[in-house]
Every structure is written in structure tokens, then in C-alpha cells.
């Protein structure tokens, strides 16, 4: 749903956001060539870029190699780093266990760019200097908290680093400090709104909200805005590329402007890897143009979205990316956390040498996602003692939580009762879209 007219004053943070397209293309080609040179410090790329000469037009991007999440995992811990150890200013990481985690090093300049990129979408979503912002995103290896934090400071607003979780504390801050802006996942915003309503707390100061890290819908946005009385914008990013700051909405809210001066974007058919027609759905593929610590070339995000190249009334020239509507792999985003079904398998392997058959169901009965893992019983797992059975279930819950970082419901079911699929196992049922229709 496009806004007819923005409800907030638009403040363009960085004039580079409005760079004419021809100049932007020139800049991209220039930066891409320099990015390729930096990437040659990484053995993975040195090998694959051997026969790649100078990039003369953006069409030449086709000649560049792709990078997948698995490539990054194989490069554990820092094989993709293109700077010296003493040039590292920060290391973030993506969720996962030791074996699956990926570390992302940043240089000083990367940190500086990151703050600027986050400031861009914060400013376009209505954040002004001197506002008070409650950041209810996780701080730590996760990029969400810190990225937003730097963007807020860059604008000259004040941060309340509430971090994720502990709703009671979050509510106390909202009620007693009365911030002007809120940063969290959309699901968490709805959850807070429900509690606020139940407790009769009003937040007259709250004006703007920045919600990301998980997919949401226009209906959810309408509810959040209605219940919290704020103007809500969406933003997008991923830790492998930089974190938040890849793209964000302007006040017209018809897609998220990609910061194309820092990221080269393609929208490809995930099967053929050929570009889709403008506006059509495809996988978002990103190349970092300025990143020094860990440059990535044609990184396959697996996020399915679309690109809208039409000029935007706001004046920003960055192409607009639609909402992420799905994945071209089996990754799930549950309460803002990335989860792969293989992580569940890993957890079950801690319980038993041969993992039992399982399935995952994700629902959204209220505002928050609920993930349920159903596990088929195997002879070695079963005990006649109820105490031991309850302990078994708790152990599975614990193992899943320590590997994925989130708590899931675990149900034990009889053998051969879960559906079997020939070939590629379809272990995930996502009912969230349907649940939302019902609300």
C-alpha cells in the first residue's frame, strides 16, 4: 500500500541518497573495481577473480562469482577477512553454533559507513536530533542493536540501550522515560502494545518506530501504528553484508530504498541465476562496494523480494526493494532470529546418536511467533518413567535453545506418525501468514 502523502516531514540525511542515476552508476563501477581489488586479498576470491579484468559497465557483473552462506561458513573463522588483524575495529557474527556461526570483521571506515547508513533510514523514518530512542534489539554479536545505536547517535538523538527481552523492564522504560521512538521487531512491538493496553499505560511521546529483522505485513503495520500511536517504517539488512542499513523506507513507504552507493543489488531467478524483469520476484543478491573488513561479491541472501526502479517522489534515487516475501532456502525467521532446520537436527543429535524424525511448525497465535518441534519417539529414547520422559523433553528444549537461541515447544509423538516426503525432506510448516489473516 503506497502512502498518498507522507504523514511526516522527510529529512534526507545524506545527499548521496539523491545522486542522479548516471553519476551513481559511474560511482558504482569505480567502487566495484576497488572492491574487487580488496577482495583479491581473500583466497576464496583471489582464485575466482583470476580471470576477471577491469569492470567497465555494470553488465560485467555477470562475470563475477557468487558467494553463498556455506562459502562463508567454510571460511570459518576469518578466511573472508580482507584487512589485517590490527585493522579490525569490530567483529560481529550471525546466529548459529560454533560450527555454523560466521564472523564478520569491520574496519574503522566500515563502522563509520554503517552509522551513516543506519542514520539514513532513521532520518527518513522521522527520527530527529534530541529525540529519545528505546532500542529493544539485541546487543552483542547480533548486528541489530549496535547498528541502530550508531545511526541514532549519528543523527544526534539519544539512545536507551534497553536490548532485547525482559518485557517488564521494557515496559518500565517506556512508561517512566516516555521515549520518542522505539526500535524492535514488529512482533515484539505488537506484544508490547498488547501489554500496554492491558495495563492502561499510554505513551503520548512516542512518534516514530523502526521495525525490522523479521518479515511483517501492511496489516501488522496498521495495527502497530494504531495501538502505539506512531509512524512505523521498515528497514532491511543482514549481518553478512553489514547489518541493518542495506535499505530502508522513506516516508512514502512504497519499498525500501537500497543504499546503492554502498551496495550493488541484483534480483535474480534463484534457479537460473538470471535477472528477473523489473518488479518481478527474485532472490536479492548483494555486492558490497565499500566494505573493507569483509567484502562480499554477489552474496546470495536467499531473501525473495522485488526491485522497483521507478523514480520515487521523495527524491531518493536508490532503487526500492519490496518486502521480503520468502526464502529460496529453508531458513526460518522466528521472533527475529534466523533458524535453519539443520540446527534442530543438530540439537536432536545431542540427545541421541541417530537423530529421530522431526518436523517444525511455526504459528503466530498472538503477536509473537511460536515454533513447535514434533519429535518421533525411538526405542532408545523411551522410558516407562514419566519423570524421565519429562526430563527428555526438557533436554530437547534446552538443546534447541542453546543452538538456535530461542525457546521452542517440543512435542513427543509416536513413531511413523509424521508425514514423510520423498526426496527433499519438507520438515517445516509455516502457518504465520494464515494466522494473520484470521486476526
Amino acid at each position, binding site marked *: 500500500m503506497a502512502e498518498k502523502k507522507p504523514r511526516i516531514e522527510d529529512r534526507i540525511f545524506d545527499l548521496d541518497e539523491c545522486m542522479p542515476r548516471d553519476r551513481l552508476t559511474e560511482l558504482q563501477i569505480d567502487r566495484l573495481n576497488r572492491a574487487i581489488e580488496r577482495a583479491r586479498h581473500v583466497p576464496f576470491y583471489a582464485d575466482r577473480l583470476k580471470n576477471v579484468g577491469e569492470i567497465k559497465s555494470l553488465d560485467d557483473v555477470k562475470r563475477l562469482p557468487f558467494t553463498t552462506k556455506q562459502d562463508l561458513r567454510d571460511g570459518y573463522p576469518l578466511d573472508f577477512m580482507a584487512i589485517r588483524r590490527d585493522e579490525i575495529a569490530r567483529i560481529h557474527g550471525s546466529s548459529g553454533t560454533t560450527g555454523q556461526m560466521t564472523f564478520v570483521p569491520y574496519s574503522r571506515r566500515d563502522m563509520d559507513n554503517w552509522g551513516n547508513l543506519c542514520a539514513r533510514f532513521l532520518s527518513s523514518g522521522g527520527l530527529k536530533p534530541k529525540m529519545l530512542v528505546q532500542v529493544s534489539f539485541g546487543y552483542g554479536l547480533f548486528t541489530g542493536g549496535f547498528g541502530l545505536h550508531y545511526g541514532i547517535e549519528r543523527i544526534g538523538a539519544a539512545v536507551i540501550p534497553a536490548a532485547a527481552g525482559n518485557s517488564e523492564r521494557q515496559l518500565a522504560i517506556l512508561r517512566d522515560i516516555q521515549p520518542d521512538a522505539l526500535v524492535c521487531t514488529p512482533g515484539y512491538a505488537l506484544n508490547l502494545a498488547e501489554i500496554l493496553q492491558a495495563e492502561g499505560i499510554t505513551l503520548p511521546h512516542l512518534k516514530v518506530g523502526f521495525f525490522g529483522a523479521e518479515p511483517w505485513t501492511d496489516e501488522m503495520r496498521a495495527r502497530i501504528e494504531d495501538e502505539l500511536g506512531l509512524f512505523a517504517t521498515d528497514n532491511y539488512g543482514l549481518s553478512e553484508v553489514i547489518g541493518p542499513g542495506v535499505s530502508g523506507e522513506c516516508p512514502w513507504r512504497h519499498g525500501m530504498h537500497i543504499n546503492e552507493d554502498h551496495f550493488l543489488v541484483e534480483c535474480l531467478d534463484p534457479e537460473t541465476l538470471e535477472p528477473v524483469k523489473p518488479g518481478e520476484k527474485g532472490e536479492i543478491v548483494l555486492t558490497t562496494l565499500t566494505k573493507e573488513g569483509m567484502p562480499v561479491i554477489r552474496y546470495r541472501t536467499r531473501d525473495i523480494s522485488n526491485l522497483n526502479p521507478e523514480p520515487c517522489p521523495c527524491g531518493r534515487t536508490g532503487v526500492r526493494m519490496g518486502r521480503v516475501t520468502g526464502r529460496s532456502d529453508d531458513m526460518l525467521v522466528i521472533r527475529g532470529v534466523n533458524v535453519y532446520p539443520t540446527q534442530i537436527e543438530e540439537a536432536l543429535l545431542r540427545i541421541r546418536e541417530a537423530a529421530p524424525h522431526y518436523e517444525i511448525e511455526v504459528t503466530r497465535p498472538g503477536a509473537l511467533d511460536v515454533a513447535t518441534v514434533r519429535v518421533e519417539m525411538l526405542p532408545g529414547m523411551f522410558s516407562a518413567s*514419566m519423570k524421565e520422559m519429562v526430563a527428555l523433553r526438557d533436554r530437547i528444549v534446552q538443546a534447541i535453545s542453546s543452538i538456535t537461541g530461542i525457546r521452542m515447544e517440543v512435542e513427543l*509423538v*509416536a*513413531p511413523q*506418525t509424521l508425514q514423510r516426503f520423498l526426496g527433499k525432506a519438507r520438515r517445516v510448516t509455516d502457518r504465520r501468514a494464515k494466522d494473520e489473516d484470521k486476526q
Partner: protein
Amino acid sequence: MKIHQIAIFMENKPGHLMGICRTLAGAGVSITTLSLADTQQYGILRLITESWEKARAVLDKAGYVVNITEVLAVEVVDKPGGLLQVLEIIGGGDINIEYMYAFTFRHGEKAVMVFRFNDPDKAIALLSNAGVKVLDGVTLFNGMN
């Protein structure tokens, strides 16, 4: 002194118990006694049968998850305070009862109960010393007939 209990994992779904009984009936296995522990999602069916090995084999084959546990069949005087007497002996030895259930028949003038103790050997020693009879399989199933 110990007898074998067969436990079967059950889903809380209509027809599940019937399937188990049909499997046992088809193999000519007679259930002497049983108990059912349930949660919202699943149940544990525990049963005693003379032909436990055969029962295990047919249930395994039918795809059920089966577990064999050693339990004690203890004679209990069938009058007020009968069970209390047994519990006092056990309690004195710091032994924990994980679960228990009853047989439907009497052994002479006594009732018989199935106990799962956390330390079955210690329980046998304590009960025998106190003059409480712990029945072995042969005595138990002979008494039935």
C-alpha cells in the same frame, strides 16, 4: 524376584490403545494388568503379561516404541493399613516409588501390587526382611490360574 513390565509410548489419539490391544490379541497375549499414565500430548501404557517376550516382539514388529522395565510384584495385606505397612518399610530405606498400580486378582488372601522403585534390589531385601512377600514370575502367574 523381579518381573518384566512392558511400557509402550502412546499418542493421545483415538484408536491408539485399540491398535495395541489388537496387536496383542492377534498374538494371543493376555494382559494381566495395566496402568496408563498420561500427559496432554502422550501417554505411557505399562502392562504386565506372562508372555512378555512375545508381546515385545509383536509390538516391536508393529512399529510401537517399547521399553522393558523390571518391577516388583508385592503382596499387600487386604485390610486397612495394608499398603501403609509396605510404604513404611520402603520409606524407612529411603527408597523412592516411581510409580505403582494393582493387580486385579488376589494371591491367596492378599492383594498384589506392582511397584517400580528407584532401587529394586534394596527394596526386595527390605521387604523380605520384614516378612513381606515379593512374588517372582512363576509364583505370580501360577497363582492366577
